């Protein structure tokens, strides 16, 4: 039965992609859309065929809830490190950071560093405790010794907000990028991404999602390496010569030092907090720690992930400078006004053409598409787990649920989230979605992280404290983003922002921690006593891993 559904949906998808390509041909006159890119489409179809093959293989091995949520806990540290790096190296960070370097040089490096330094701290303070306590989702850990209903509900709400915001941003990015790269209409691109991701997740669960992520990470790292080496080769592997030429092209050496990205100390610190603590509160990243066998493998995962991500950021820096010398000097890639054809984020894409011709451009375009696909799959799986494991099984059914039913709910949730992502992706086509990832990080840092962190570290934390403080952090983050310059001025068109800073994390994280502390120490309820008494046993499990979830034997 399952086999035939899989084959049928794969067949439908092929027909769909083919009509999409034809429809694109008919619409060629449209302003922004590019002519149909045949090498890119062929390479993308190869990726899709390969990953659907993996999904089919994974579907045979995904039988229990543990398989579905965590790939049976059998992923190795090295594989998981690649998958984590894959989750983190989204198309937005590849195209966005190289574009930032292309525009303002050194500032791109500052941004990358902010994204990277959260990882060591996650390793030192969170990774192994999380692995020792949790089963499928980070809410397992946050609610380990607290009352299930309120904490699961809050965590699921935090997880779903992050997932949805991230999904919308990725979907809109996917639609626009694909329109540009492949010459497919926007709606087709969004629907295609939605259907593929539903297939990966519902049939192949975490195992398929992880392997799609690993393959994409390898493709992206190889492609970026080729580009960086090609750029350096042109300058006899001399950074001095590359930078010299870039300064000559730009007509200023401002690109070699910090510019306007970080203007005042409050913004600088606040951005740093959002990036660091936000990373430690992203549900799709935290879920990855349950896919490995034990704390040892969890640590290795972060070690490898940090290496891959750091290497990737070094490559994007070289790629951005490469684009300055090879793209900005070639009229083929520029509009008559001197901007990049297709918009600012296209620096890396044009560079791919400049160093590798049509075929390599096709490869990088296909990799960018694959990247979006892999990231949205991971997000959807995390969202579906929050619905089925946290909301349905723990809150709604109070833990009285059989595994088959929970998995069925999870698959339904995946389909609903996929359809929702398609609808929202189309609805937000013309909107400015750049603030959404920032808001997602702010919520992750202000609601998910403080509750998770204090539940593992602070013995006096109580259910009331965690719930009220976490909720306050969540509300503060949303209110400050909406009344801040990005939404209040740039999107809603008001004159002046009510809250002056772009990044609210410094304030909203403080509110969350103070709130949790205050409501916990004031808590004299019966439940508070249970919460505090349970810390000792939790801490022993945290420290030693006794009683932790093992890997499935198959």
């Amino acid at each position, binding site marked *: 039965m399952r086999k035939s559904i899989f084959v049928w949906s794969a067949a439908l998808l092929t027909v769909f992609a083919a009509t999409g390509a034809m429809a694109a041909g008919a619409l060629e006159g449209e302003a922004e859309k590019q002519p149909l890119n045949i090498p890119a489409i062929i390479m993308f179809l190869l990726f899709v065929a390969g990953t659907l093959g993996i999904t089919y293989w994974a579907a045979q091995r995904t039988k229990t809830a543990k398989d579905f949520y965590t790939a049976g806990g059998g992923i190795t540290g090295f594989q998981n490190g690649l998958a984590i790096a894959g989750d983190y190296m989204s198309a937005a960070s590849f195209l966005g950071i190289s574009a930032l370097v292309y525009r303002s040089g*050194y500032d791109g490096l500052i941004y*990358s560093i902010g994204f990277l*330094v959260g*990882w060591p*701290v996650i390793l*030192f303070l969170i990774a192994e405790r999380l692995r020792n306590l949790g089963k499928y989702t980070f809410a397992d850990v946050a609610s380990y010794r607290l009352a299930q209903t309120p904490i699961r509900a809050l965590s699921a709400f935090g997880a779903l907000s992050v997932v949805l915001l991230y999904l919308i941003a990725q979907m809109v990015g996917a639609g626009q990028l694909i329109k540009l790269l492949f010459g497919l209409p926007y709606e087709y691109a969004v629907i295609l991404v939605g259907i593929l991701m539903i297939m990966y997740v519902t049939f192949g669960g975490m195992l398929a999602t992880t392997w799609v992520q690993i393959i994409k990470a390898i493709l992206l790292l190889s492609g970026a390496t080729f580009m960086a080496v090609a750029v350096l080769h042109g300058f006899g592997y001399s950074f*001095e010569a590359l930078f010299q030429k870039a*300064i000559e092209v730009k007509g200023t050496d401002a690109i070699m030092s*910090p510019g306007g990205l970080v203007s005042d100390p409050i913004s600088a610190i606040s951005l*740093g907090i959002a990036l660091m603590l936000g990373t430690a509160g992203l549900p799709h990243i935290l879920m990855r720690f349950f896919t490995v066998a034990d704390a040892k493998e969890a640590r290795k995962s972060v070690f490898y992930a940090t290496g891959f991500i750091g290497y990737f950021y070094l490559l994007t820096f070289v790629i951005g400078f490469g684009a300055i010398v090879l793209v900005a000097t070639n009229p083929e890639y520029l509009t008559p006004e001197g901007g990049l054809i297709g918009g600012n984020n296209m620096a890396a894409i044009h560079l791919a053409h400049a160093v590798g011709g049509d075929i390599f451009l096709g490869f990088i375009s296909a990799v960018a598409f694959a990247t979006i696909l892999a990231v949205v799959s991971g997000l959807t799986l995390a969202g579906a787990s929050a619905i089925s494991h946290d909301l349905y099984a723990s809150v709604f059914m109070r833990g009285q649920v059989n595994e088959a039913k929970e998995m069925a709910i999870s698959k339904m949730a995946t389909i609903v989230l996929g359809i929702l992502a398609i609808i929202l992706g189309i609805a937000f086509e013309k909107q400015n979605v750049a603030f959404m990832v920032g808001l997602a990080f702010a919520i992750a840092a202000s609601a998910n992280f403080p509750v998770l962190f204090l539940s593992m570290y602070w013995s006096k934390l109580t259910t009331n404290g965690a719930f009220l403080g976490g909720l306050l952090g969540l509300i503060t983050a949303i209110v400050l983003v909406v009344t801040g310059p990005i939404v209040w001025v740039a999107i809603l068109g008001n004159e002046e922002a009510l809250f002056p800073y772009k990044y609210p994390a410094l304030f909203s994280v403080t509110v969350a921690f103070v709130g949790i502390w205050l409501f916990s120490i004031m808590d004299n309820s019966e439940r508070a006593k249970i919460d505090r008494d349970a810390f000792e046993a939790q801490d022993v499990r945290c420290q030693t891993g006794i009683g932790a979830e093992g890997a499935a034997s198959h």
Partner: protein
Amino acid sequence: MQQDLVERIKNNPKYEELVSKRASFSWILSIVMLVIYYAFILVIAFSPSVLGTPISDSSVITIGIPIGVAIIISAFILTGIYTVRANGEFDELSKQIKEEAK
């Protein structure tokens, strides 16, 4: 976890050793990373021109570039240092504690 098992583990001096050694190690490394990062951010916020100084008179490369690259590499090295010690020494202690609690 049963209360008697918790008690037995907590009374094992090796448990005390594991917890205190690991806590101080992980907090020290976290602080090292935070100090490196926030020192960098504060220089950018208060005195960005420092990072714009060329590494030598004849070069266009500013010291900001090797410093930035060094921060990225330091993040990787710090995770490596922690992983080696935790996967060796700490896991060994943890294994002994588990054996002795049986």
